[in-house]
């Protein structure tokens, strides 16, 4: 019956395309636009990196409330507990003909004051490129593993429906010990072409303040603007396609104050510096197909991204929703990601570059990543569905397509476990 209800003209596309306007992680789910039922989602997520690095425990909830015939309200909340170590810079490794491996001395470290693991006096750096010794690879220096933070965030989204037009307004805030963000969004959705097409325009603004814990009397701001143009198209009774073009403009303090770069010329680790503006374009295409035979849905997403920091990226993702009978569903998932390196990225630097921008953040290196997951869902009652999932992510320097495969010392992986409940009431 639910299918018939949702199949009413005007509702189908709204429901299907609403998700276009959710920035995942931040303003989830407008998929349930004009819901016929109230809905509550609550989930526990556990993120864990290998080698005893970062861990995040997250509790999330999302409540959708219809308010009469023309309005609905979504209230989202999240609490993340973050702990563990993360890399702050890379030390080159010097290999000599006699088989010895030497890491150069670190005379001073800026800002994050990571504790280098080695004890005792460091060896002097041998002469490089003189025949006996040369730089070959690098290793990461980690920030103290006792790091802890909590992120609390909440937002609302109000949708107003009038004929074939939907207007949305949302706002929220996010708080951490060292980072505050306030944000809002506006969007307009128009159904066209006998409701087979939906055109979407959106704008989002975030205003952030960074007060890093490793600095005193220091506070910097950042503003992010996002623009979206989207088209969702029904291609047939079993096929749906969406294309979104987004443009993001970030301005202000975009540096990570906990990241350093190592300078060979002075044997010092100094704070990184990034440009104070970034423009980024994304072209996302999502395709969904329903197979009548196995009664399964195939999802296929491709995103091309480009930023004026010199990074381009490809993201390809697919998942399959297979009913198993008696309310069970199995959802296998596969994702591939590849990015080029930022113009100002090096694993370490000889000396500070003249243009004043430099970073050794492993996330700005060129790399690729493959992740795979499996999820099991069970419709427990007519109202309640339980989801249980696990996903493994493997970052490898040489999985990348763009050819900057020289950051293998930064390879790692993480696992996400998830347990969630969807309740319609």
């Amino acid at each position, binding site marked *: 019956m639910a299918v018939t209800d949702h199949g009413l003209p005007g509702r189908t596309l709204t429901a*299907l395309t609403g998700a276009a306007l959710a920035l*995942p992680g931040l303003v989830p789910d407008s*998929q349930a636009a004009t819901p016929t039922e109230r809905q509550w989602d609550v989930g526990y997520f556990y993120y864990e990196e290998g080698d005893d690095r970062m861990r995040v425990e997250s509790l999330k909830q999302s409540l959708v409330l219809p308010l009469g015939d023309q309005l609905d309200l979504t209230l989202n909340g999240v609490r993340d507990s973050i702990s563990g170590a993360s890399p702050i810079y890379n030390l080159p490794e010097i290999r000599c003909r006699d088989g010895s491996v030497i890491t150069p001395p670190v005379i001073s470290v800026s800002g994050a004051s990571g504790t280098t693991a080695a004890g005792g006096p460091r060896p002097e750096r041998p002469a490089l490129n003189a025949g006996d010794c040369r730089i070959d690879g690098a290793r990461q220096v980690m920030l103290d593993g006792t790091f802890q933070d909590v992120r609390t965030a909440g937002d609302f989204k109000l949708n107003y429906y009038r004929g074939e037009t939907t207007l949305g307004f949302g706002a929220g805030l996010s708080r951490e010990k060292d980072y505050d963000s306030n*944000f809002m969004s506006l969007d307009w959705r128009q159904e066209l072409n006998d409701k087979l097409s939906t055109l979407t325009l959106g704008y*989002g603004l975030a205003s952030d303040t960074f007060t890093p814990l490793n600095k005193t009397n220091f506070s910097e701001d950042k503003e992010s603007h996002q623009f979206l143009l989207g088209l969702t198209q*029904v291609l047939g009774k079993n096929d749906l396609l969406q294309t979104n073009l*987004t443009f993001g403009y970030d301005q202000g303090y975009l540096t990570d104050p906990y990241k350093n770069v190592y300078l060979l010329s002075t044997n010092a680790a100094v704070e990184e510096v990034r440009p104070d503006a970034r423009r980024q374009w994304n072209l996302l295409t999502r395709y969904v197909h329903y197979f009548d035979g196995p009664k399964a849905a195939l999802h296929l997403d491709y995103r091309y991204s480009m930023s004026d920091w010199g990074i381009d990226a490809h993201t390809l993702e697919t998942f399959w929703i297979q009913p198993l009978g008696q309310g069970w569903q199995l959802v296998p998932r596969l994702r591939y990601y590849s990015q080029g390196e930022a113009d100002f990225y090096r694993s370490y630097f000889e000396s500070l570059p003249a243009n004043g921008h430099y970073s050794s953040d492993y996330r700005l290196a060129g790399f690729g990543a493959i992740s795979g997951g499996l999820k099991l869902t069970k419709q427990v009652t007519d109202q309640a569905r339980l989801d249980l999932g696990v996903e493994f*992510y493997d970052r490898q320097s040489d999985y990348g397509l763009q050819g900057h495969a020289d950051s293998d010392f930064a390879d790692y992986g993480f696992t996400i476990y998830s347990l969630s409940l969807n309740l319609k009431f």
Partner: protein
Amino acid sequence: MIIRNPLMMCCPLLILPALTGCAIQPVAAWERGNLARPEMALEPYPLEAGFRQHAFFSKESVSGGYGIGGGGCGCN
């Protein structure tokens, strides 16, 4: 049925995986049952998608594209 709306001219913008050309068929209201199934939603698991995208956003240098709104974090 002829495509009536000039917006359909946008079709070449669409990259059609597994399809060729502008293979758009008219779909009557009563034929839209499958499209309305929850698993056919563009994002069927929004809560999980939110967490996953946040993890990728923290660990990869590009982000976004899926929608607008939302704020930043100290995670990247």
